[in-house]
């Protein structure tokens, strides 16, 4: 478990000073008249430490597991670490390849062939060494998932079986799931299993036929699109972790990068007959998700086919 920080250090206050100015993170209830220059007073209050930095302390007490250190996981890890999240679990079974670098911006050319989880952890350390950063170079499985999310708030994208696995583990552990995906020039974002919002299975009780699933290796993606979606995830994780709460519950945000259009969709609530989060759940422990979905939990084989 994460050790509870009693207060911010002077170093912390210096590092996070610009975000401590926000009433949402630092100086609660003093956001009068920043416009006119009297905000300098606000900063002085912040620096003198005479108020409680409730939001920032909440962040420093939060653990987040990032499933996949790819196009979405890179900006997500980057901005969570920069903002001062307490602990960051970085999970990826894969190694860095040249074709990742157009969107997976935490890795560098010199990291080709290295485990993504390790490469990402090193980059995060360079940015903020005060974050407790744990790389997991492994595949998430029904055997290890529940242990990995102990004390962790969640966030993830991935292939279809891993999506169901992550969802079910989140429901069983009572953690919110900030989920995003990006393909070609489109992105989608939803916060599942959070304050009455549906879980992934409420929305998609039956997995899609494997032949209808397109991933980035097949469909292509403009790198900055997962960049944008990963930043959106980071924003919602930070809002949840600092105590403000997400504004995306029971919503699906769709982003069309081509036309620069956003659309926010009102989703169904938690379903009473959901197999996972409903009133009489039929699934009460993690199952074999590759069998359930009829597809593999990695896209490695597909890559080798090329």
């Amino acid at each position, binding site marked *: 478990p994460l050790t509870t920080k009693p207060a911010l250090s002077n170093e912390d206050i210096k590092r996070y000073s610009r975000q401590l100015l926000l009433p949402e993170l630092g100086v609660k209830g003093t956001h009068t008249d920043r416009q006119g220059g009297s905000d300098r007073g606000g900063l002085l209050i912040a620096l003198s430490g005479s108020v409680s930095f409730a939001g920032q302390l909440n962040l420093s007490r939060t653990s987040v597991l990032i499933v*996949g250190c*790819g*196009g*979405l*996981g890179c900006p997500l890890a980057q901005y969570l670490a920069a903002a001062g999240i307490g602990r960051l679990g970085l999970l990826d079974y894969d190694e860095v390849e040249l074709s990742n670098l157009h969107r997976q911006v935490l890795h560098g050319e010199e990291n080709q062939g290295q485990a993504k989880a390790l490469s990402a952890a090193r980059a995060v350390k360079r940015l903020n060494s005060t974050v407790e950063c744990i790389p997991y170079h492994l595949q998430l499985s029904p055997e290890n998932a529940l242990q990995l999310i102990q004390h962790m708030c969640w966030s993830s*994208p*991935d*292939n*279809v079986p891993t*999506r169901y696995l992550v969802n079910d583990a989140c429901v069983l552990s009572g953690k919110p799931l900030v989920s*995003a*995906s*990006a*393909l*070609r020039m*489109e*992105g*989608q974002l939803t916060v599942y299993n959070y304050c009455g919002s549906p879980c992934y299975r409420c*929305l*998609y*009780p*039956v*997995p*899609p*036929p494997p*032949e*209808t*699933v*397109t*991933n*980035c290796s097949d*469909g292509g*993606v403009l790198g900055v699109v*997962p960049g944008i*979606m990963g930043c959106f995830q980071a924003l919602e994780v930070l809002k949840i972790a600092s105590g403000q709460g997400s504004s995306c519950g029971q919503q*699906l945000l*769709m982003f*069309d990068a081509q036309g620069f259009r956003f*659309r*926010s*969709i*009102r*989703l*169904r609530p938690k379903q009473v007959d959901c197999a996972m989060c409903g009133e009489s759940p039929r699934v009460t422990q993690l199952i074999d998700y590759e069998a359930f979905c009829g597809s593999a939990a990695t896209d490695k084989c597909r890559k080798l086919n090329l």
Partner: protein
Amino acid sequence: ACAEKMAAPVAVHLEFGGGAELLFDGVKEHHVTLPSQPEPWDIKQLLVWIQRNLLKERPELFVQGDSVRPGILVLINDADWELKGELDYQLQDQDNIVFISTLHGG
């Protein structure tokens, strides 16, 4: 006499996204007019109409039985169709119906 029993034609705005548009020549937006028919149009009938008139190939990537295939979300006027009655929702003139395929990349 027959005309009196018919519902008027219904103009609807259809959108496909998340990759579903690739089954429709890559065209994301379609303005269509559904002809008069004895009963009001519902989503179930719209799916049949789309299959016959817009979808030219590989219907199994769009429909399954009399509904959409798993992994496609239907939105009626910017709300999840589950909130509106799903297949039984009766179309109104100028409705906006979106078919969105779940993305899996990252």
